[in-house]
């Protein structure tokens, strides 16, 4: 059952990458990156149990924090970028 869950999460990560490549707007891509990061945390935890080395959970904790910081950073940057572009369009 662990291996089945690992394969399912692999498939979902491929779907998230497809949406990130296809995505028409910036926010679709940010959404796909967020989903990919959460699924990476799950994949690291599951692979730790599949390989019999549960020490991988420390890496999963650190990856969850880095994922949150990166998503918030990209959103804040996109906010400034979009505001600047809308101001130029208005003038």
């Amino acid at each position, binding site marked *: *059952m*662990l291996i*089945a*869950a690992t394969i*399912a*999460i692999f*498939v*979902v990560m491929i*779907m*998230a990458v*497809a*949406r990130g490549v296809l995505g028409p*707007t910036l*926010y*679709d891509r*940010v*959404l*796909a990156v*967020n*989903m990919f990061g*959460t*699924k990476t*945390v*799950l994949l690291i*935890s*599951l692979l730790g*149990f599949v390989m019999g080395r*549960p020490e991988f*959970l*420390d890496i*999963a*904790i650190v990856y*969850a*924090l880095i*994922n*949150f910081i990166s*998503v*918030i950073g990209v*959103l*804040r940057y*996109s*906010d*400034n970028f*979009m*505001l600047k572009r*809308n*101001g130029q369009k208005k003038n």
Partner: protein
Amino acid sequence: MDSLIQISSGFFLLVGSFLCVSGGVGILRFPDFYTRMHAVGVTETLATAMILIGLILHNPDFLVDIKLLLILLMTLFISPSASHALANAAMRNEMLKSNENKTDSDEVKPSNL
């Protein structure tokens, strides 16, 4: 008792995998950004919680259980706040214009993220 715990762990992992795959199909097939956010929100809280509860039931080690519980708690705090920030930024900037709900004369509110 032990086999019951293993069976319930497998059940939680199976339900979590099904929710993950349905969210992946949702992010590919849904037509709009907000509906895609709905699909991703399902996978990020419920499916993650199901898979991590399955892993907690799977192993007997105490320290590993504490670490898994920490990951579960962190995910349940982090992913709704990231989704809220994403929806807030998308609504503030230009996603409503693509739905023809907003005209060009509307002002863009400044960010207080």
